[in-house]
């Protein structure tokens, strides 16, 4: 928490002042010049638009993929489930940086570098295989009788997923949507590698070029950082009650 307060405080400092001899939590004079410059210089508006575009496509797609796959895993033959779960666990353990080079080679082969596609592509993985597994566990925890009742009523797996299973795991969906959004919104590494066209820069990337423009002009890029942080924090704060406090009911 203290770092966040400092972030806001730093972003409100008047740019170009000599370093203050004493630490101040509330800057004097208070100034929003940092924000104005950040928006002018960094193309942050354009970048925000790109970020929003990526999030609007990738987040719903990712949640959709994860919940469909997680549901299917509870219904297919146990042996197939075991294989997919094991593969997901392995995929989970591979650090993202370890896949940079080969993924880049593949996207380049497909001619998709310098587009937003590689930034959306991880949605096919549910952003993280972890989320598929979380959905799998949530769907598996529903009473087996409910699924049997759906079979007796001749519901196809797709309709069982949509009409019964999904409505019953709404808190999971809320939490995972928030996490997916935060990860997608914050994604820095992928844009760094795949996007060179300034017009396609997402917010994290624009933020970096803003900081490279004048590395000592802290209020400006801190203001940019605040702009990039606020949406993630808001979404996160809205959803965090679900996974921090869901079990706060009195026990026993």
């Amino acid at each position: 928490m203290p770092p966040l307060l400092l972030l806001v405080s730093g972003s409100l400092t008047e740019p170009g002042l000599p370093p203050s001899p004493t630490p101040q939590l509330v800057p004097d004079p208070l100034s929003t010049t940092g924000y104005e410059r950040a928006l002018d210089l960094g193309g942050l508006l354009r970048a925000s638009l790109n970020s929003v575009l990526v999030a609007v496509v990738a987040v719903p797609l990712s949640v959709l993929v994860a919940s469909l796959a997680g549901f299917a895993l509870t219904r297919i033959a146990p042996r197939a489930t075991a294989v997919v779960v094991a593969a997901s666990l392995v995929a989970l353990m591979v650090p993202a940086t370890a896949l940079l080079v080969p993924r880049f080679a593949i996207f380049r082969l497909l001619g998709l570098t310098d587009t937003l596609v590689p930034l959306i592509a991880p949605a096919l993985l549910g952003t993280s295989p972890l989320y598929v597994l979380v959905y799998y566990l949530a769907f598996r925890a529903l009473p087996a009788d409910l699924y049997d009742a759906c079979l007796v009523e001749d519901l196809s797996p797709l309709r069982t997923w949509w009409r019964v299973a999904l409505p019953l795991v709404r808190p999971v969906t809320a939490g995972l949507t928030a996490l997916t959004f935060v990860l997608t919104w914050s994604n820095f590494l992928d844009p760094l590698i795949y996007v060179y066209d300034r017009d396609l820069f997402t917010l994290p990337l624009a933020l970096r070029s803003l900081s490279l423009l004048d590395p000592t002009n802290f209020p400006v890029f801190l203001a940019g950082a605040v702009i990039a942080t606020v949406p993630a924090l808001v979404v996160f704060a809205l959803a965090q009650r679900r996974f921090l406090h869901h079990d706060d009911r009195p026990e026993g």
Partner: protein
Amino acid sequence: MSASGEAPPARARARAARSPDRRSRRHLALMLTPYLVGLVGLVLVPALVTLGLSVTHYDLLRPPTWAGLDNFAALLEDPIFRVALLNSVVFALVAVPLRVLLALGLALLLHRRARGVGTARTAALLPTAVPEIAYGLLWLWLFNPLYGPINQLLRAGGEHGLTALGRTPPQWLTDPTSARAGIILMSLFTMGETFVVLLAARRALPRDVYEMAAIEDATGWDVFRRITLPLMAPVLALLAVRDAVASLHFTFVPAFVVTDGGPPPYATTYLSLFVYQTGFEYLRYGYAAAATLVMMLLTVAAVLVQWRLIRRYRRFFQV
């Protein structure tokens, strides 16, 4: 009357039990396909491509040429790679236990319901939600020797830019040891996920065990040492291994944005940064792939450790 002659063997039918009809099978295959495409296309195939690239020289412009084990031999000789490997291992050995301990402390402190606990939990979690790059830029400022609030604080009460004890404040980004410490410090605040898992684990512990301990008049330390710690040990071990693997990745942005791999001699060049620079700045993709392979081997080693831990604790709990 009995149709046992025509019926398929029991095993085959029993396995089909969860998806008995053709419509279900078709639907389920459809539902699983996008994820399988992602899993194969974004993880499995790239991992295989890494294997392939690691035995070639490749700069993206000309087609790859066969290199055999040259890349690996070169890695062994490469002082930068050795430093990066060492840095990554040291980071995992120092930062990971600290992160897990901090998360454990917070989880134990905040698992009860009380006034302000909710806010405190949120506060502990929020830095994890800050975009990596914004977080990196923040620390770039915090660590700045002149403008940065950290050194302003350290200088408070002192004169002529010295601390109150009359010493020079740390030159965070130019002194190798301070820079490494700085990166570790940065990583401590983002242990939110570990914290959430430990919080859930602590809350899942049986309450009667603690009531029993209270009846026996056990001290807080005894309760921690004899009850909480042993019961949470499996989770802690798993989180530590997971964190160690993840640390290969989450050292990238701090090293990239805050210290740029420096100060010399490559004090904060970690494997992830090494791979990035080798591939995307020096365009030596084959060489980068070979380094990636080493990284994956480290991961595999960590996964094996995790596997053994799970097995051991399973046995431990069955006895």
